């Protein structure tokens, strides 16, 4: 999970990394009287806010309040802004870059250090990679003195400043391990005109799998926007019940075909095919690892909580452990409760799939649900095509009879 600047700086504070003096502003009235020059910084999850005009120089409280009322609770780079940081204007002599993240190829944390910091660091990598130092850390040894010396080998900074930078490196590594960070970045790490080293900006990405030991319970969000209601509801399903996985990943999408998949790789392969055939998914989510029926019920409810759906696709690879009858019963219970008129395509095989077939066919008959069930004889991609075709036919029927309510539609097809 990615943090905003002020949250990342909260981590920095706990490990004593020197940061610029800032005040969190959630409301225009939070701005105290002042007369000097300060920076008003929009708190976003996306990068590049400086270039987009999200960091403004303000002289005095009046100017700050005027600007704050414009930013707060409005959209900036597609994000709803709820916080600003009123930050000290540090006198910059030099901008450094310091970051740490995992190198997936070497499976080790890597420090990135450059004495040409600032907004164009990526550009610098193309132009003059020699100005960027990379230092691998042997994880089970931890950060050692030699690692820091290596990064500072060609430094042009005065020794006292180098010592401060080294100190920040050590503290940043402590921060990295103690808070289970996947990535940390200070850009810029400023050397002030008085030769002090200060973190002026901060980026942090935390490991969600380590949530159980996070020291600070940060509010959950997905991607570069706050979580939607459906996403929050889906994530909640998984939170307090460790049996199987359901809803841990949930992304709201624009389409009209509701999706319940099983197995990450299968889900992606399935969506690739669905879109190739012209279908539009309404969401992306998964369940697996033999979750109990109640978890699947809850997830189904979230998945179907959307207007104008034209189909539900429940698909996954042949299950090893997942009880197909029990998990599909969870889906079916909600279908019986809501009695949707749209087609439902199910491609699932595995333990107890014969039972599942009997159960689904009985429900199709009894409740008039438009269920199409397949096992492993139909491939995932074929199931995706069947879903797209049926959904298209369903929409065609609706468009032909716009005056009719979907409930009538449902009764008609119940007789099939």
């Amino acid at each position, binding site marked *: 999970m990615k943090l905003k600047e002020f949250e990342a700086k909260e981590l920095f504070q706990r490990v004593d990394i020197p940061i610029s003096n800032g005040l969190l502003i959630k409301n225009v009235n939070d701005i105290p009287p002042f007369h000097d020059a300060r920076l008003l910084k929009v708190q976003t999850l996306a990068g590049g806010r400086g270039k987009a005009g999200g960091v403004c120089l303000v002289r005095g409280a009046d100017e700050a309040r005027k600007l704050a009322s414009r930013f707060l609770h409005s959209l900036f780079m597609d994000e709803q802004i709820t916080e600003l940081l009123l930050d000290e204007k540090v006198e910059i002599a030099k901008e450094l870059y310091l970051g740490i993240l995992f190198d997936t190829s070497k499976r080790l944390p890597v420090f990135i250090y450059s004495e040409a910091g600032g907004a164009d660091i990526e550009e610098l990598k193309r132009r003059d990679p020699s100005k960027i130092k990379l230092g691998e850390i042997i994880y089970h040894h931890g950060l050692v003195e030699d690692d820091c010396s290596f990064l500072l080998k060609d430094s042009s900074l005065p020794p006292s400043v180098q010592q401060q930078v080294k100190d920040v490196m050590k503290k940043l590594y402590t921060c990295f391990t103690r808070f289970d960070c996947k990535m940390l*970045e200070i850009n810029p790490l400023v050397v002030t005109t008085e030769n002090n080293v200060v973190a002026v900006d901060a980026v942090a990405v935390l490991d969600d799998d*380590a949530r159980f030991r996070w020291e600070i319970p940060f509010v959950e969000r997905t991607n570069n926007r706050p979580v939607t209601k459906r996403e929050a509801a889906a994530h909640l399903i998984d939170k307090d019940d460790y049996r199987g996985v359901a809803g841990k990943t949930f992304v709201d*999408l624009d389409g009209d075909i509701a999706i319940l998949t099983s197995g*990450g*790789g299968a889900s992606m*392969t399935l969506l690739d095919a669905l879109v190739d055939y012209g279908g539009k998914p309404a969401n992306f989510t998964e369940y697996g690892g033999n979750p109990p029926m109640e978890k699947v019920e809850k997830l189904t409810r979230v998945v179907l909580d959307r207007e104008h759906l034209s189909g539900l696709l429940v698909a996954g*690879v042949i299950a*090893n452990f997942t009880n197909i009858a029990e998990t599909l019963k969870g889906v079916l219970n909600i279908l019986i409760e809501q009695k949707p008129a749209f087609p439902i395509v199910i491609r699932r095989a595995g*333990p107890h799939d014969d039972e599942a077939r009997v159960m689904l066919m009985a429900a199709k008959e009894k409740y008039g649900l438009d269920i199409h069930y397949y096992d492993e004889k139909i491939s995932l991609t074929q199931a995706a095509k069947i879903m797209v075709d049926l959904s298209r036919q369903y929409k065609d029927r609706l468009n032909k009879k716009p005056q009719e309510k979907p409930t009538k539609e449902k009764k008609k097809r119940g007789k099939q």
Partner: protein
Amino acid sequence: MAILINEKTRFLIQGITGKQGEQACQEMLTAGSIVVAGVTPGKGGQEVLAVPVYNTIKEAQQKHTFDCSVIFVPPRVAKSAIVEAMEAGIPLINVVTENIPVHDMAYCFSLAKEKKVIIIGATSAGIFSVGKAKCGPIGSGKAKIAFTPGPIGVISRSGGMSCETSLVLSQAGLGQSTVVSIGSDVLMGAAFAELVPLFEKDKETKGIVLFGEIGGTSEEDLAAYLTKRKEQGKPFSKPIVAFISGKFASNMPGVSLGHAGAIIEGNKGTRENKVKVLREAGVVVAEIHHDVARLIKERIISKK
């Protein structure tokens, strides 16, 4: 032959008394695997399907020897279980547990490198040397029908798709030598680049099929390995066919890793880049998943 595990491999199951561990134990025994013992702290002295359970690996080693440990313990204690197996000198560790914190795995990988231990996973569905032995949940229950013995080595970043890929191959009359589910975590154990050399040495394997995904760098690492082999004048000797999923997911809003991610990975991780570098390195990339069967078949036949 096969890679990693075979009918002689002596397995230890850590977390054998849990629901998943016990289920896998049963399936492993059915598949012909030699499950020597299990470990669950505090449950020493019990038996699971006639397999003796010990409190620690050390205790178990007084009576037994192990070639491979399979990890089923919960994510919060997985690190200590993996470290225990490494300290005990077990050369191959298959981590089935999901959701292990990345820092815990980073510690394990760094120690594994020093101790020359092979870790497969985490989030692995297991390893299946078809007709010989298997570990982990792979190919359990009905999923067995997907796997048939034969000449294709399969490596998959998705557990489910290791089964689906084998199913597609089996339906085309191509069995599998060994199927390895390597997981798809941020940090992965032995992946494509580390495993294809093993398949190259395996006489039974005639071709290799991969299931890759967006994110990470394991496809790029493989491409770099194959290119290096070419430059050394020892080009890789067996055909490789891959499918990379995530065409659609690439367009979904994703977490940006900011500058640091871009500096280390550049444009690595995207499907576009993976397909490009794999093709340049001589790998055949399928556009539709079920096409992998036809593509590898053509190449095996033309080799004969």
